[in-house]
Structure formats: structure tokens, C-alpha cells
């Protein structure tokens, strides 16, 4: 994208609450931001290292529960609970990475699903800690000095900051030696290893950063909806992330954000027209069509089109 286009986009994002003061639209924007962070997080694994995690909702849920429990039970400030939630999710990512990343492809996918399944069952059954299926109501809204960030415009800026932070982390990572190591592993693992890329080290690193980002999204979600229940582990969250990344373009920096925006706004726009079940059915069909007809995603397709248009 050209510099001018980027500036216009940044300006629009920064001033959104002023020209779109409708709380419903702001809610959609906040959810798009939270899903944007999640999609960026999944993309780091799926897009750059080529490993699909179907347990990503676990890191999201761990972040949400950690943040909610720390603020509710120990009365920590949001600003302490957020990094703690991120750290805890990262720790879970490290554990799964250490354990599972000697496996590849389908086996890695199965371990991540199983991990998410176990964590979800714990959240339902460990009544003393998580309040089971009833969930944890009354998660406090963050405050900044004397101000509460309870209002939608304030929370929008908080989420926007998180999206910027996550994009920045991804950008720095991808454009560094580490990012090149990720891509080398995705493209040809034996070759990468033969030139000295430490496979396990880099895959675990990707899993840790990815899980930390998902934990960040989880914490932001918990303090936004102010209620956490085992639903945060729902598989449909993971499916939504996968569709956002595959549709937007895996292995690109802008793709996950474009995907997150489309697949948050589109269901809301379609809500009046078709029921939720039809939408999920359409998601399934859409995933099939995307894989068959647009395997690289929207952003790479647009980039290729622009290259063809250029004289």
C-alpha cells in the first residue's frame, strides 16, 4: 500500500469514534480489533511456520480466565492482570510448543485440539476456581488514573493500541532473522536445518509469541464483555480465526487484519437477513470454496492483481 493510503487508513482508524459514534458500530469495531489480534496470533504459526493450531481458543480462554480471576479474586489492577494473563498464555504456549512441536501436520493439530479440549473440561469442572458453567460475572472494567475505560470509545482506543502492538510485534519478528527462519522452516525444513536453523527453538518461539498474543486478546475480551464462561473455549472461536487467516491471506502481515475485519462485519451485516446457523453453514462452505479457488487469500490476490495492472 502507498504511503498516502496508509496515512488515510491510520487517520480513519484513529478518528473512528468521532465519525462513527453509534455504540453498536463501535462494538463491532472493538470485536474486529480483538479478533484482529487473534488472527495475527494464529497467522504467526499457520502463516509463517506452517503449523496449524486448532487449539488457539485455549490460549484465548486462558488469557480471559487469568485476567478475570486475578482482578476478581485477588483484586489486581487491570494493568497488572493483563501482562500476567499474557505471560500465563505464553507459558501454556511454551509448554505445548516444547511438547508438541516435534510433531508435524495432522499430529500437531490433534495435540493442540486435545489440549484445548482438556483446558475447556477443566474450566467446566473445576468449580472452586472457575465457577464452572455459570462463569465469572462482574469482571471489572479497566481504569486509567481517575478515568474508567468502561465506555465504548475509550475501550476502542485500548483495543486499537493492542492491534497496533500485535502488528508491530509481528512486523518486527517477520522482518528479522527469526521471521526468515520461520519461513525457511515452512518451505523446507530439512534444508533449513542443514544450514543451521535450530528447528525446535524457532517453532517454540513462534508458539510462545502466538499464545501470548492470543492471551492478550483474551484479557481484552474478558474486561470488555465483563463476563467469562467456558464458552471462551468454544471451537467456533478457533474456526473463526482459521477462516480469517485463510481468507485474508496466511503468511502476510495485512491479511489476518483484513480477514478479521471482513468476518466480524459480515456476520453482523447478515444478521438481519439470515440466522446464525445459516451463517455457520455458509462459513463451512466458504472455507471449502476459499481453499479450492483462492488458496492464498484475499490480500495476496489483490497484490497479484495490482502487479498485473501496473504497466
Amino acid at each position, binding site marked *: 500500500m502507498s504511503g498516502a493510503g496508509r496515512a488515510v487508513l491510520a487517520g480513519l482508524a484513529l478518528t473512528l469514534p468521532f465519525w462513527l459514534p453509534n455504540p453498536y458500530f463501535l462494538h463491532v469495531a472493538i470485536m474486529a480489533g480483538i479478533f484482529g489480534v487473534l488472527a495475527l496470533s494464529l497467522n504467526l504459526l499457520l502463516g509463517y511456520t*506452517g503449523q*496449524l493450531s*486448532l487449539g488457539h481458543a485455549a490460549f484465548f480462554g486462558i488469557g480471559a480466565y487469568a485476567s478475570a480471576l486475578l482482578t476478581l479474586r485477588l483484586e489486581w489492577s487491570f494493568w497488572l492482570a493483563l501482562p500476567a494473563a499474557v505471560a500465563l498464555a505464553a507459558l501454556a504456549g511454551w509448554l505445548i510448543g516444547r*511438547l*508438541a512441536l516435534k*510433531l508435524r*501436520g*495432522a*499430529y500437531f*493439530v*490433534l*495435540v493442540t*485440539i*486435545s*489440549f484445548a*479440549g*482438556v483446558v475447556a*473440561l477443566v474450566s*467446566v*469442572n473445576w468449580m472452586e476456581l472457575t465457577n464452572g458453567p455459570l462463569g465469572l460475572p462482574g469482571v471489572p472494567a479497566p481504569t486509567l488514573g481517575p478515568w474508567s475505560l468502561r465506555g465504548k470509545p475509550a475501550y476502542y482506543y485500548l483495543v486499537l493500541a493492542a492491534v497496533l502492538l500485535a502488528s508491530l510485534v509481528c512486523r518486527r519478528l517477520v522482518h528479522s532473522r527469526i521471521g526468515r527462519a520461520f519461513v525457511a522452516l515452512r518451505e523446507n525444513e530439512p534444508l533449513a536445518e542443514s544450514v543451521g536453523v535450530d528447528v525446535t527453538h524457532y517453532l517454540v518461539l513462534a508458539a510462545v509469541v502466538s499464545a501470548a498474543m492470543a492471551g492478550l486478546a483474551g484479557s481484552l475480551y474478558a474486561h470488555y464483555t465483563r463476563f467469562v464462561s467456558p464458552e471462551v473455549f468454544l*471451537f467456533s472461536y478457533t*474456526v473463526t480465526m*482459521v477462516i480469517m487467516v*485463510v481468507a485474508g491471506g496466511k503468511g502476510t502481515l495485512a491479511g489476518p487484519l483484513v480477514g478479521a475485519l471482513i468476518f466480524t462485519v459480515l456476520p453482523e451485516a447478515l444478521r438481519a437477513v439470515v440466522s446464525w*446457523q*445459516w451463517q*455457520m*453453514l455458509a*462459513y*463451512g*462452505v*466458504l*472455507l*471449502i470454496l476459499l*481453499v*479450492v479457488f483462492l*488458496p492464498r487469500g484475499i490480500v495476496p490476490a489483490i497484490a497479484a492483481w495490482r502487479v498485473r495492472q501496473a504497466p
Partner: protein
Amino acid sequence: MAELLQHLVNGLVLGGTYALLGIGLTLIFGLMNVVNFAHGEFYTLGAYATFAALGLAGANFFAAVLAAIACGAVLGALCEQALLRPLRAESIDTTMLVMIGVWIAMQNAELLIWGGVAKSIPHPFPTAPLVLGPVSIAPLRAFVLVLAAGLIVMAYLAIHRTRLGTAMRATFQDRDTAALMGVRIHRMHTVTFAFGSGLAAAAGALLGPVFLAYPSMGDLASLKAFSVVILGGLGNLPGATLGGLLLGIAEELGAGYISSGYRDAVGFVIIILVLLLRPAGLFTKQERIG
């Protein structure tokens, strides 16, 4: 002791159907190399097809179970022809994403057709349990166990003792040589997928009346099928049978002696432990390649 025996009997009933699921998936995943996350949806389809055949057509219970198996096999064949055949040259990850799409689409189609409320499937068996010494078993569960055992033996004979089964195994061992010997490769892919899907539908038709039919029942079934396949080793039919029985008994013991809330965690833990400690499966001698 009587309690333990009772748990073992219940575990065998459950395990028999898990074995059906696992044999179906070991054909599709182990032989065809398709990571079929929609496998559990064929299981769900089996339960709902039984329900529909009983309700709409007023069919006999046994005919309804057969119709459900046929329904699963036909839809499996269609799925293979329409979606997997064009993607045969693609990587395993591509077909995996497609099958995740099929999973979501099928589950929500079932939700749209039959609604989210769990359906109870009527059956003609008396509810009074058969008491055999220290253990008792409901006649329906006994029927499930017998039919599952019958289907497992039939599947084994079909794959190891018939020309079709030989052609099937040849196709996935060495595609080119099999083609040179006159095996119709494409047809074998379709047949194998249909066979696996039919077995999943059979498991659903059998367990549906024991429990309830609901749209998301396939999610856990898929994962259990994967854990059975991983336990038994890829493409290993006796392994999948033993793995299924083992998983059923382990779940029943876990629910009985640890906590019923963690019943479904047993399968997850098995997946994680076996993949980490013995990735070739419990019943295989040689290492998995690739």
C-alpha cells in the same frame, strides 16, 4: 469386583462403537492420508438418519439402522468425488482445511434440519436389563455390542479377504503399480472413503438410541476416532479395534473411579500421551515413517 465387571461391560459396549469409528477413520486417515475432521459428522448423520427413517418413513428399527449406514456411505462417496478428487494432487494440509469446512457445514446443516434440542431415538428393545450373574446389561446395549462386533468382523474380512479389499490396500501402498495391474484408482478412493463413512454412520446409528442425537455429538466422536487411530497405529485394523475397546474401557473406568466430568478428557489425554511417547501407536512394531 462386581462394580469393576460392570464398568468393563459398559466399556466394551462403548468401545465396540469406538472401534467402528476408528476402523472407518484408519482407512480414511491411515490409508488415504486425508485428515478427516468431518468423520464425526458422518457419525452424527448415522444417528439422525436412523431417527428420520423411524419417524418419517415409519421404518422398522433394524431397517432404519441399515438405511443410516447406506446414507453415510452414499454421502461419503459424494463428498470424495466432489471435493477430494479435484484436490488429489494437493498437500495433506489443503484437504485437511477442506474437511474442516465440510465438518462445519455438515454440523450446521444438521442443526438447521433437526434443531438444537437433543432427540431421543426410539428402539424396540425392552428396558428391563438382562442380569448375568454380577453384571447387568440393557438389551439395547447388548444388541449394540453384538452388531458392532459383527460389523468389525465384516469390515476385516472385506478388507483382507476380498478382491475389492486387496485392490483397496494395493491402491494406497503403491498407486502406480496398482493402476498398472488394472485397479481403478479413482474408484478405489471413492469406495474407501464411502466404506469409512459408512462405518462412522453405523457407530452413530448404534449409539444414537443409547444416548441422544444432537448436532454437536460428532465433535467428540471425531476426536475419539482420532485417538483410536493413533492408539492403534495408522491403517492398522486390529489396532483400531483394540484401540477402540481400550478407549471405551478407559473412559468408563475414568468416569467410574475418577470423576464423570472428566470422562471425555480420557480421549484427549490418550492422544497427547501416545503422540508424545509412542507415536507409532501401541500395537505396531516398526516406526512410523514420514
